[in-house]
């Protein structure tokens, strides 16, 4: 069917920003370790370990510097199943977004669990990372899978 001449014109409009950020001391160590398939958290004054490592204590704002290796395995503390992934999401097939608490860390973080089907997912399940062939030092170098 042809549109009438008075129909409004439409066009795809793609807006993108090619941001790069410099990482600084702590996050540089975090992403360098990730490229080496290792996970770095950071210790707070109260002894607990934040993962991912960050520069400042979120409660007291004091500078943090004691990097601590955690993981690589962990547990799912909560999750949601993505049955129909959209184009820019991390996997093209169904997967879970989950909060994963790595062994040795005290805080969970949001990441992808490639479980195959929703029935394989459970709160409290153990997961392990699966890295891509050539990690570049980015958070999407790996996904989790059931351990």
């Amino acid at each position: 069917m042809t549109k009438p001449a008075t129909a409004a014109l439409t066009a795809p409009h793609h807006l993108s920003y090619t941001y790069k950020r410099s990482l600084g001391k702590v996050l540089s160590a975090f992403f360098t370790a990730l490229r080496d398939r290792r996970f770095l958290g950071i210790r707070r004054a109260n002894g607990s370990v934040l993962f991912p490592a960050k520069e400042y204590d979120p409660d007291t704002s004091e500078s943090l510097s004691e990097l601590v290796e955690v993981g690589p395995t962990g547990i799912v503390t909560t999750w949601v199943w993505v049955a129909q992934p959209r184009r820019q999401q991390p996997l093209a097939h169904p997967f879970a977004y989950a909060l994963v608490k790595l062994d040795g860390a005290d805080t969970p973080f949001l990441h992808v669990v490639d479980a195959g089907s929703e029935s394989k997912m459970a709160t409290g399940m153990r997961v392990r990372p699966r890295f891509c062939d050539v990690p570049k030092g980015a958070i999407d170098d790996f996904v989790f899978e059931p351990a």
Partner: protein
Amino acid sequence: MSAKEEQASGPVMVLSCPISLDYAYSAGQSASRFLRAIAEGKLLGQRCPVDGRVYFPSRGSCPMHGVTFGDDAVELSDKGTIVTFSIVRVPSQNIALPLPYITVNVLLDGADTILIHVLDAKLEDVHMGMRVQAVWKPREEWTTSTANILYFRPIDEPDAKYETYKEHI
């Protein structure tokens, strides 16, 4: 060790985090009419029914009075007057001219709003009041796009009087 291998083993100092958004843009009735006209080499503005000022490109309503413009369109000349200009020395996408180039505010003849475009002229020649004309792509390349006009170019006419464009500075 090659530079590339060194990069792969040295510390990760920078994170690339591009952001991209995909929209389906709808031009709406008024801008669609403007775009269909420019596909035929015509420049359409619209006249405000309250004060008679001509807005270019055409739009749905008057930003001053809030009244709708209706279906009356005013065809404008592709000649105009430079109101202000700036020399650009940093690269940008989709500009038909090499660096450094001149970006101009052009008051098209018959319009009461300015058009921002680029000018193909010697940097030392550009000045306020300079008379210019659009340079179009070859006719067979025209589409419903403002990119049909590549840039403006000076024409051999006396400068416009300051009073004719001063309110747009």
